[in-house]
């Protein structure tokens, strides 16, 4: 059958089969010739007994070729090989051209005819793509007795008749375009093939096109497009509906693999499938598109999943087990809902949340009065919002994207959402516009609550979800943004944002809202409290190591995070804290702490001034200050403006906590003058686990002394981040010679490996990133952080960099942080990135530096600087030093150097390529 070589296809896989048809459109006795790729004969020849069969169904306009990597993997899957049968549907690929219009029910029958003729025995897992997904599910529903699982890639089973179908399909279906675009010419094929990311290799594109070279052979392509049920009147609508509803009853494992860059089968169809198949494993391959099997390693994902299933759903069992073990560590009775303090203090008139007004730039130094919300008002507002959200249809499990700046409004919304069991999606502007868009598309909110700028983005990017405006909007703008409602109009009372219940500082009075009479959180107007193990929040990583990842927390894990913070920093009920760092600010009410948001642009930490910080501290007599290192730098740069009163307010502070990015000891040293009576702490942690460890300034200096004295095993080589916080445990997985963290977990000192953490407050799972989760949780009970480091003999953790950034040289593995510290010790070097260039195991060490005075254009460093830097890191043998104007960093913190990008740039330059900029 193979008339020409198809790259990646073993010729022995290609076979034809004559299949008697039972389809209604065929006269009795009709026999069709099918073409398929089948590794069955190959398995038999090698004496391999398959664990089962993968039945792979392509969509339009591809053919069985799309599944070639699955066939290869099926044979190669060592101890558990799988037979893989990839069919060419009739009128498609190299199967017969029947001359009839084969609609969905007929195609499902056709596939059944084929498997009957094949006499397919044993367990079958269906695999489908595009419209082949629906057909594979139709087969699955008709063969429940042998169905062992379903795999779907970029497909759809349901289209909301009230919504337009994707624009690309509308075009392809348009009478003026349809025949010409799909059949007469190969335009539909060409456009589909162009959806590959990265573009298809020439020979692969040719193979995909091979069966469709003439208009006659393309008739099936056109008929397939014509069979798309764009509305309920379409003849195939009923059959599609039967499949869509039928799969709700499937009790087999399901795997959904998705390429989000698909103009046709977009995320909205994935969300629909997730709703129908709630137990499915889901992985979205950020950056991949419609031709997912061409873009990414689908075979690897499928066989990992098959392996997990075969191991007796080991993965689910272990996650369940982890939850129990970590819960046990926290104690079974320790779960306290996040809103518990709000209920407890619902009658208190002391301030709960304070928003500082913009500092006056005029002579009136006091500026406008801060907006103060008492505990009673906060409880009322949370209650009002919770009832209002419920009234407009928010249900437990719904996802709500909150695009509102930190402050009392966001705080109220967060606790309202948590109380009603909605899942808060917190993506911030620090991800950049592109990153924010990806994050929201990936999380797939059911509701978006945002300020006007967020609504503009929602409209521009077509974000999913019912839109709710944070502020009142004109009718024209409501129409423009398709806004359903605004917070002020939510049923249940008037909004404090409108001014009714906001009072000036120190004059807080209980609000007279309608909920007060019934007490806060009236049970008859709210859903029952959510289950502690139900999802509560999706937070996003900073995206400094690839696209930002969604991280899902349950109520129990959020509650544990609050407990960990309270225990680590003594943040008891009654503390007053300045929240210059948003994530902790949001926990204020849960901690029972009064939180004040200083006057700053929260999306730009550098805008916090010393005066603004002092004013915020003074407003609530704050004892604790949370601030990001970028904000702290600006505060220290503006201390000249501080008056004596400001100094007094700051003298009250007993705890300064800086987090969010690496915090150098020098920065904390400088800050100790600002807050003379405070302990200065910096935690180590990540979106997936915060905090993991903590260290105080004095301990940092002690660690540095130990590192210099070399009298503590393991002290040195990295940044000391202290000891694990109460309830957290840290171990490392040692690196092998190629830099993989493959070693057995150990807490022995001075062994470099990937850092793993176990704590009740570690994330529940990555969101819709099953492969990522599988990898990060592969040691039951532990989260792999992706950071590398080691412990010392005093139990302190030293962070050496990211696992993805280690250098694997012929002389062994090196980690970047310590090398960068050494390079930065050279006078004139402001910031350094040390990266490996070359093949794994044979990399050379390259330093890329920012200098002062700066350089206009990137270049090789001057000989003197190169020599100094080489001498500073004599043990690492630096091959080259490059100077740049500015090292690229993450958007959120402007602190994490993007070593991957720098390494790619250095590799190009040092190979003799264009200099450009990193």
């Amino acid at each position: 059958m193979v008339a020409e070589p198809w790259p990646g296809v073993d010729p022995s896989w290609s076979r034809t089969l004559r299949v008697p048809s039972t389809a209604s459109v065929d006269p009795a006795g009709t026999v069709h010739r099918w073409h398929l790729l089948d590794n069955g004969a190959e398995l038999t020849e090698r004496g391999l007994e398959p664990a089962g069969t993968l039945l792979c169904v392509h969509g339009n306009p591809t053919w069985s070729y799309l599944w070639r990597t699955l066939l290869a993997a099926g044979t190669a899957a060592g101890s558990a090989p799988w037979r893989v049968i990839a069919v060419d549907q009739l009128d498609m690929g190299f199967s017969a051209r029947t001359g009839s219009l084969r609609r969905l029910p007929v195609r499902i029958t056709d596939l059944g005819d084929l498997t009957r003729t094949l006499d397919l025995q044993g367990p079958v897992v269906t695999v489908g793509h595009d419209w082949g997904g629906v057909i594979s599910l139709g087969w699955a529903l008709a063969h429940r007795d042998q169905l062992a699982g379903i795999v779907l890639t970029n497909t759809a089973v349901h289209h909301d008749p009230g919504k337009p179908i994707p624009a690309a399909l509308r075009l392809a279906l348009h009478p003026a375009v349809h025949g010409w675009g799909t059949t007469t010419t190969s335009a539909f094929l060409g456009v589909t093939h162009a959806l590959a990311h990265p573009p298809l290799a020439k020979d692969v594109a040719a193979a995909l096109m091979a069966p469709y070279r003439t208009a006659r052979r393309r008739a099936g392509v056109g008929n397939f497009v014509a069979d798309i049920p764009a509305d309920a009147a379409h003849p195939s609508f009923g059959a599609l509906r039967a499949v869509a509803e039928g799969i709700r009853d499937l009790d087999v494992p399901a795997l959904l693999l998705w390429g989000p860059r698909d103009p046709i089968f977009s995320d909205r169809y994935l969300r629909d499938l997730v709703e129908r198949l709630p137990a499915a494993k889901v992985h979205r391959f950020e950056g991949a598109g419609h031709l997912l099997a061409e873009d990414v390693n689908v075979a690897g994902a499928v066989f990992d999943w098959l392996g997990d299933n075969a191991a007796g759903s080991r993965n689910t069992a272990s996650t369940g087990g982890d939850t129990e073990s970590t819960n046990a560590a926290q104690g079974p009775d320790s779960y306290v809902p996040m809103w518990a303090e709000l209920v407890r203090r619902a009658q208190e008139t002391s301030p709960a949340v304070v928003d500082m007004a913009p500092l006056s730039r005029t002579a009136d130094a006091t500026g406008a009065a801060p907006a103060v919300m008492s505990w009673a008002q906060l409880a009322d507002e949370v209650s009002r919002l919770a009832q209002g959200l419920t009234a407009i249809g928010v249900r437990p499990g719904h996802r709500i994207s909150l695009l509102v700046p930190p402050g009392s409004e966001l705080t109220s919304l967060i606790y309202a959402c948590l109380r009603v069991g909605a899942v808060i999606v917190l993506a911030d502007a620090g991800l950049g516009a592109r990153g924010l868009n990806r994050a929201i598309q990936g999380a797939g909110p059911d509701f978006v609550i945002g300020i006007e700028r967020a609504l503009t983005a929602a409209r521009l990017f077509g974000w999913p979800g019912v839109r709710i405006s944070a502020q009142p909007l004109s009718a024209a703008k409501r129409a423009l943004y398709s806004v359903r409602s605004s917070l002020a109009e939510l049923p249940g009372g008037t909004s404090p944002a409108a001014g009714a219940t906001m009072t000036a500082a120190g004059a807080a009075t209980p609000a007279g809202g309608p909920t007060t009479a019934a007490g806060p959180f009236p049970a008859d107007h709210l859903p029952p409290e959510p289950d502690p193990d139900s999802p509560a929040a999706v937070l996003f990583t900073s995206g400094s190591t690839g696209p930002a990842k969604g991280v899902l927390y349950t109520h129990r894990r959020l509650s544990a995070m609050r407990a960990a913070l309270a225990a680590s920093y003594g943040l008891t009920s009654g503390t007053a804290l300045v929240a210059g760092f948003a994530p902790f600010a949001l926990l204020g009410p849960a901690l029972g702490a009064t939180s004040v948001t200083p006057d700053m642009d929260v999306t730009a930490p550098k805008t916090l001034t010393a005066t603004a910080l002092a004013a915020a501290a003074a407003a609530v007599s704050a004892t604790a200050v949370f601030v990001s290192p970028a904000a702290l730098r600006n505060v220290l740069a503006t201390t000249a403006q501080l008056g004596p009163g400001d100094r007094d307010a700051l003298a009250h502070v007993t705890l300064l906590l800086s987090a969010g990015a690496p915090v150098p000891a020098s920065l904390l040293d400088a800050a100790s003058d600002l807050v003379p009576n405070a302990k200065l702490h910096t935690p180590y942690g990540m979106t997936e686990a915060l905090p993991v460890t903590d260290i105080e300034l004095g301990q940092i200096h002690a660690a540095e002394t130990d590192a210099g004295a070399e009298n503590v095993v393991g002290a040195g080589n990295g940044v000391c981040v202290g000891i694990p916080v109460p309830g957290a445990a840290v171990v490392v997985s040692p690196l092998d010679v190629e830099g993989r963290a493959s070693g057995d977990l150990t807490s022995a000192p001075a062994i470099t490996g990937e850092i793993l953490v176990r704590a009740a407050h570690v994330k529940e799972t990555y969101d819709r990133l099953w492969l990522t989760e599988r990898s990060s949780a592969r040691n039951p009970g532990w989260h792999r952080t992706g950071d590398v480091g080691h412990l010392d003999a005093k139990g302190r953790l030293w962070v050496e960099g990211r696992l993805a950034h280690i250098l694997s040289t012929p002389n062994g593995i090196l980690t970047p942080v310590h090398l960068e510290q050494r390079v930065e010790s050279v006078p004139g070097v402001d910031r350094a990135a040390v990266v490996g260039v070359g093949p794994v195991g044979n990399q050379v060490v390259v330093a890329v530096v920012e200098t002062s005075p700066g350089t206009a254009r990137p270049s090789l460093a001057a000989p003197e600087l190169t020599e100094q830097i080489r001498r500073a890191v004599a043990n690492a043998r630096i091959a080259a030093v490059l100077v740049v104007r500015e090292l690229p960093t993450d958007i959120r913190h402007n602190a994490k150097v993007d070593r991957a990008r720098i390494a790619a740039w250095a590799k190009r330059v040092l190979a003799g390529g264009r200099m450009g900029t990193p």
Partner: protein
Amino acid sequence: MKVLVTGASGLLGGAVARLLLDHGHTVRSFQRRPSNVAGVEDVLGSVTDAAAVVRAVAGMDAVFHLAAKVSFAGAAEEFDRVNVDGTRTLLDAARDAGVGDLVFVSSPSVAHSGTSIVGAGAGPAVPELARGNYARSKAAAELLALAAAGPGFRVAAIRPHIVWGPGDTQLVERVLNRARSGRLPLLGHGAALIDTTYVDNAAGAIVAALSHMEAANGLALVVSNGEPRPVEELLAQICAAGGVRAPRIRVPGWLARGAGTGIEAVWSIRPGQDEPPMTRFLAEQLSTAHWFDQRRTRQVLEWEPAVSLDEGFQRLAAYYRP
């Protein structure tokens, strides 16, 4: 052991002969000019003279073959006659004379085209791919040598990359001469990483092959200092060691490659022995990366470079300013 070194009048051949003497071997040399290595028995002649070759290998236990025509310019036939035919003649004569081991000194350029080499290992020699007559002829010769390898006649190919040191006329003198006369431009941004080999390290690896023929038989192994450096830095350090001002004129890489092709074409039809100031090959060498993976070499030969680049440049400076 009685060993023959061909090409002992050259920088590397001389170093190999001296090191073998240090190791207590009886060393004979074979080339057209005297080796000037004390303690070595010189047999003068050319590898293109079969009778002379037979005389040279008589009674030898092992042969180190370094004699070759090394140049950036010249007729293809001349390279083939010396490098390919000469190697064939030597292989035949050595086998006939009962020589047990032969170390063929080759070049990494036998396995690479003009594209950049970033940490690659030693692939098989491909004459069709190699750039320039030298590399092409050495590739063909290495294939001949390794094809002759067997249990009774063991052959290893050692490929040192850009050998330099005190007394080097191939790289150091060329660089210094051109720098002195202002004919050494910097090509492109000068950051391309280049592997080089200090002569003593290359000699060390070559001599180590003799004691590791069991493992090295039939293999081609790349040798360098394992310290790739930006080309601009290397040139500057050579100039500094030689007391010459480092080059300052910068020429874009693409322009140099284009100009090199033109100049090469003119030189190839112009009679005379002098080399063109810039060949395309040289331009490529100086504007694209070529550094290697020699982990296998170190493992097979149980060898490490003894002289670092820094130490090598100090020795070079001492040579020019005693």
